[in-house]
């Protein structure tokens, strides 16, 4: 235990246990101290271990610690082993650091809630599970974290449980992700029977000898794992749970449904990159799913009223970018975008939460407006976050990460002009809906009275996150200006380098186009919502456009589709069979016996003449038979 690695997940777990068992006896201050303190401590330890790993790490660049043997049956061996390498370090850093900020924010945000300790208990449990997910050295332990975060997501989406709609959203999230998880579990079975192990490092080592390039088995495995990732990361076709998940408190959306849990799919694919590299089909599927999701979610975000739903669809869309990057083989770019996205999206959600709370739980952007001067801290931080989301060139970190993905969508080994075009269109839409959101929320006239302003506990995390949203991009600069590759150097200890199929020299042209797309989007948003809002009204008059808008607004009709093809039949079948049709077989036997008994007891009438008739008839029949013979 000289290695403090185990402390990183253990501290949030301890926080959870304290709050779960003693939460009702603690004061609110103590609860906040236990809840936020444990995660802050874990963040400190992460930074400590992280710097040690980067400066004087062991040879393989990996810390590993085995706590105990979990299961050992007939050659199947899973240990509780934590492993820290460059990839998991990035994730652990984001989880603990952003997690700590969100916990501090929550201490203020949830102050008035009666279930203060339950909230922090669930949040701590979430951080613990998420850390287990990324630190796990084998896929089974990862699955434990994977399901654990699903549980916490369920608990926190349905945190305000009195409203059945929240409970429904929570169940929907759990069930849909569970579908992906089950596919992933089958994937794990296949991996085990093919390779005899679930330890990630062993699979990575064995994979090239075990499977041929593009073998069917490896494609199936990759697709099954992908299904797990798709469910967790709210990608097509299992994306419908994420917008509803916004029923949870805003810090939950920031931590779970923006920064960490929804990117678990990205982590999984990056972690198992050897398997995906062996299958061109699976990789293309990843890229196509990413591209399709980023486009569909982007269009949907354009039409939403609810500020949190806009952010939810934009999260979906940004994760789509990450999937696209993974799919074309730009592993590092995906992880880079994950980190940057975690900063600015957490910031956006927290700022949105502050706005919503100040406006008496008003979610509708069209009833906000004019907040620019009234809530300056929130405005400036939100503006920075939005700039990053829209990828404003040079000054925002989002530009550096997204530009890289756009470039690789064309230039990387698995890239193609079509993917690039989709990503570029996505960038335009992203900028457009971001601008729309900014204008509706902060400019124009004020429509709702501001209740109370966010306190220090809420604004300080916003400022810190805003700072990182600005500077996080500078650790990785493109080839043509600076060519500073701190992040990718770190990542290449774990992930393979991206193979380019075109010349580097043309990259500046793509950057220019990306910048143009951003500015175009901003202009569109400004034109329709800032400058000439009556044009939107005119567009709405058009029958076809209105129909299209309704279609986009509903999230491209996926909810309705699943309702018709899955939910309704399921409910119908279970309802008609409530009394169990098999039981009818046995009650049928009972009824037949009953009928026979009735029939025979009818003959026992007590009337002599029937008996004699019976005897006579019997005698005649017997005589008759005898004569016939």
């Amino acid at each position: 235990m000289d290695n403090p690695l185990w402390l990183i997940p253990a501290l949030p777990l301890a926080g959870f246990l304290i709050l779960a068992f003693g939460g009702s006896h603690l004061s609110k201050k103590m609860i906040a101290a236990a809840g936020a303190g444990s995660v802050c401590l874990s963040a400190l330890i992460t930074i400590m271990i992280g710097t040690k790993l980067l400066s004087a790490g062991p040879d393989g660049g990996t810390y590993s610690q085995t706590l105990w043997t979990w299961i050992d049956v007939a050659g199947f061996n899973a240990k509780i082993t934590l492993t820290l390498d460059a990839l998991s370090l990035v994730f652990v850093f984001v989880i603990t650091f952003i997690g700590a900020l969100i916990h501090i924010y929550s201490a203020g945000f949830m102050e008035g809630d009666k279930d203060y300790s339950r909230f922090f208990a669930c949040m701590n449990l979430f951080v613990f599970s998420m850390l287990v997910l990324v630190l796990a050295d084998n896929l089974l332990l990862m699955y434990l974290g994977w399901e654990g975060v699903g549980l916490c997501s369920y608990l926190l989406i349905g945190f305000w449980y009195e409203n059945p709609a929240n409970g429904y959203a929570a169940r929907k999230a759990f069930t849909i992700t569970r579908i992906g998880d089950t596919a992933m579990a089958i994937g794990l079975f296949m991996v085990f029977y093919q390779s005899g192990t679930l330890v990630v490092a062993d699979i990575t080592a064995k994979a090239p000898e075990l499977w041929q390039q593009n073998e069917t088995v490896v494609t199936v495995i990759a697709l099954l794992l992908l299904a797990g990732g798709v469910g967790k990361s709210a990608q097509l076709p299992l994306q419908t749970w994420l917008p509803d998940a916004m029923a949870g408190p805003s810090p939950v959306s920031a931590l779970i449904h923006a920064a960490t849990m929804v990117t678990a799919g990205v982590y999984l694919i990056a972690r198992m990159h050897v398997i995906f590299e062996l299958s061109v089909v699976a990789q293309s599927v990843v890229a196509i799913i990413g591209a399709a999701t980023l486009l569909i979610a982007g269009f949907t975000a354009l039409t939403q009223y609810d500020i949190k739903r806009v952010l939810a669809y934009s999260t979906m869309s940004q994760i789509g970018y990450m999937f696209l990057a993974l799919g074309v083989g730009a592993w590092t770019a995906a992880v880079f975008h994950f980190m940057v996205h975690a900063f600015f999206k957490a910031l956006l959600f927290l700022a949105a939460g502050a706005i919503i709370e100040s406006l008496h739980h008003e979610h509708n952007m069209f009833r906000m407006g004019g907040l620019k001067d009234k809530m300056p801290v929130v405005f400036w931080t939100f503006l920075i976050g939005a700039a990053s989301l829209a990828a404003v060139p040079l000054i925002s970190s989002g530009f550096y990460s997204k530009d890289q993905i756009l470039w690789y969508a064309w230039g990387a080994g698995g890239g193609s002009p079509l993917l690039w075009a989709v990503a570029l269109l996505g960038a335009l839409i992203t900028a457009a809906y971001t601008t729309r959101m900014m204008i509706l929320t902060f400019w124009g006239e004020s429509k709702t009275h501001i209740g109370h302003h966010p306190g220090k506990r809420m604004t300080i995390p916003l400022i810190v996150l805003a700072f990182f949203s600005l500077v996080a991009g500078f650790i990785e600069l493109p080839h043509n200006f600076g060519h500073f590759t701190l992040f990718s150097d770190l990542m290449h200890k774990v992930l393979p380098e991206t193979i380019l199929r075109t010349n580097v020299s043309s990259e500046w042209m793509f950057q220019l186009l990306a910048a143009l797309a951003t500015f175009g989007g901003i202009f569109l948003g400004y034109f329709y919502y800032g400058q000439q809002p009556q044009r939107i009204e005119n567009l709405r008059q058009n029958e076809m456009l209105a129909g299209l808008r309704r279609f986009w607004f509903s999230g491209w009709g996926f909810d309705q589709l699943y309702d018709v093809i899955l939910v309704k039949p399921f409910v119908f079948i279970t309802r008609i069979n409530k009394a169990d049709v098999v039981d009818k077989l046995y009650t049928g036997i009972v009824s037949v016996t009953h009928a026979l008994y009735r029939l025979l007891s009818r003959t026992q009438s007590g009337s002599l003449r029937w008996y004699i008739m019976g005897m006579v008839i019997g005698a005649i029949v017997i005589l008759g038979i005898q004569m016939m013979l």
Partner: protein
Amino acid sequence: MMLALLIVILMAGGLTALLAGKWNKSFPRWIALISSTAGFLILLLFWIDQHQVVQVSSDQNWLVQYQKDWILSFGITFHLAIDGLSLLLLVLTFFMGILAVLCSWEEIRERTGFYYFNLLWILAGVAGVFMAMDLFLFYFFWEVMLIPMYFLIGIWGSENRVYAAYKFFIFTQASGLLMFLAILGLYFIHGNNTGVYTFSYVELTGTVIPSQVAIWLMMGFMVAFAVKLPVVPFHTWLPDAHGEAPTAGSLILAGLLLKTGAYGMLRFVIPLFPEAARQVAVPAMVLGVAGIVYGALLAYSQTDLKRLVAFTSVSHMGFVLMGIFAFNELALQGVVMQIVTHAISTGALFILAGMIKERLHTRDMNLMGGLWTQMPRLGTIGMVFAMASLGLPGLGSFIAEFLILLGAFHAHFWITVVAASGLIFSAVYSLRIVQKIFLGPEKGAGHIPDFSRREMVIMAALTVSIVWLGLYPQPVINTAKPAVVRLVQLLQPDSDIKSEQSYVR
């Protein structure tokens, strides 16, 4: 000697409780608590003692035996013996016994003497079933656990109790008779072959049976165990019995009686008829999967909480059947885990249902809702066990289902894929339980008390066990290992004995 003592403790305790009940209403429960705890402690000490010396070997290595002549002229002996598998199930029996006594503590107020007599005699029957090494003795204990259970449901059950009790009795009795016929068939075949007429399990395992006859004899055993387990077309007694039985009755039914079916398949069906068992493996796995899916579908539509939990049992026991007939060590270890964890998790859900019924006087979930607000502890525990029932990693049920699926995957790909869909369905119905009972707006007004101290003890014991099994299942796995390995060796023709790493291609 210890083995006979265990049964004697229970039976004598039952008789004493019956007599003491004439004097005082609260004596019997103390007697029942003391006798079940005493048995539990004896077993626990034995287990800890044995834990060092567990070894894997292919011959019949019983941990401890007890043998006395009984009816010599028919070759019947009073032969008890246990291996790791039986030991686990015995520990489980007494653990469940203690909990059953504790959760009837306040619930049962009438005819307490006779109640605890029945309770202890059921336990004695179950314990006997897990130890008997003589088929006649086995059948005797099989009946011993049946009749008191009939009384338990029929006397202390709720409204529709008589119907449920009859149904339970007829299903189990009829199938038990088929098993008795099969036992007699085996007895005479062995007698004809060797000239030695005996009911001894050890002797009969080696019997050479023509394969045509073997199938039929095996079916006799299978039907009895399939009804108990229950396997899908024979499951319909279960929801009625569970729904109407008193809390302790449901607990023992789910926790122990169903497990005798699984135990019977592991102990008798496979060792006595390995060839025939192999022939029916695929249909049996299909039935298992049918149980998983069908039970889950039915569970989703129920409004009666106890019926719902009963159907989840059908679904979970489908995993057991599938695992047994997957015939490999992973799946069989999963089956053992599933037996133990299902007893704990489903038992806990039944106890919860009982506690809710004591407070709200209803089992109808449509009349519940928002209970979390008044009873956060009950809500939390309910959440834990709903999660256990959907197989959340970190809780014991996950290990069980994962190992079964992993093992079954080796045996049959598509069956396992369908079975895995059970994971989704289980999530659907488990979350429905949580939503309907604990979440949502509060339905009833008025103060409802949260857990009492006694209830906390019961729930803490169950919660600790399920978490322990989820995070450190190795003691259970190691204890069951010799028995499981022996089963696997029985089933594998000598030519392709699988070594540990043989999965690697």
